[in-house]
């Protein structure tokens, strides 16, 4: 049932669930990141670099960032759908949105794993 709803026949349903799953990933990471920041308390440059040193943390952060890009894409796209009635203008904005999010994603990946 759930699998069937998520196929290409129901793209709205898929977007809806993707929006929520990416939100969950970000929520869990955010709580974890704040807690880790409060425990480790990186107060110097060395401590700050150490904070981002563990591979598991880099991967978790990248997962957060991927979720964020997907979440922002769906969210801002909905905002454009609601407030930009002109289809050609909206098309340009949608493309700008996708390009900027890809740039952020590549940038973050390079920062965290490069």
């Amino acid at each position: 049932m759930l699998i069937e709803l998520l196929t290409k026949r129901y793209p709205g349903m898929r977007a809806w669930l993707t929006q929520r799953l990416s939100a969950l990933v970000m929520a869990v990471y955010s709580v974890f990141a704040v807690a880790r920041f409060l425990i480790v308390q990186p107060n110097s440059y060395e401590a700050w670099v150490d904070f981002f040193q563990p591979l598991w943390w880099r991967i978790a952060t990248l997962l957060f960032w991927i979720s964020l890009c997907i979440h922002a894409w769906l969210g801002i796209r909905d905002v454009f759908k609601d407030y930009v009635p002109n289809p050609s203008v909206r098309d340009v904005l949608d493309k700008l949105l996708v390009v900027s999010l890809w740039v952020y994603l590549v940038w973050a990946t390079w920062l965290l794993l490069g």
Partner: protein
Amino acid sequence: MQKDSQKTKLRPGQLSRPKNLNLFTIRLPINALVSILHRATGCVLFLILPVILLLLQFSLSSAQHYETVIAILHSPFIKLMLLGLAWAFFHHFFAGIRHLAMDVHWMTTLMKARYTSKVVLVLGVLATLVLAVKIWM
């Protein structure tokens, strides 16, 4: 009705309804307020993404750059902006949790939704205040 439609020259099938588009006369219910703030804060958070990446990259690149970033973050004006952005994050976070709760049919009656709206607004401001105390003490 007949007279009215003749007076304003309505097309056939079009209803004559009173129009009120003055937004200042419309009181936003608290649920709508939380909802529109969720959208607005989402847009703000999207717009600051490049700044976050820039600060992260700069602060990790060298000890000197790290000190520069710290100095920037310590200026009072930036601190105020930071608090505004922090509120945007907290509000989006708590309002998002509320939406997820409603997706699993929790707290969906009007009274409960109004109550959780207040909780979301209070939690957002409270978290921002805690951060304000943290960064000014």
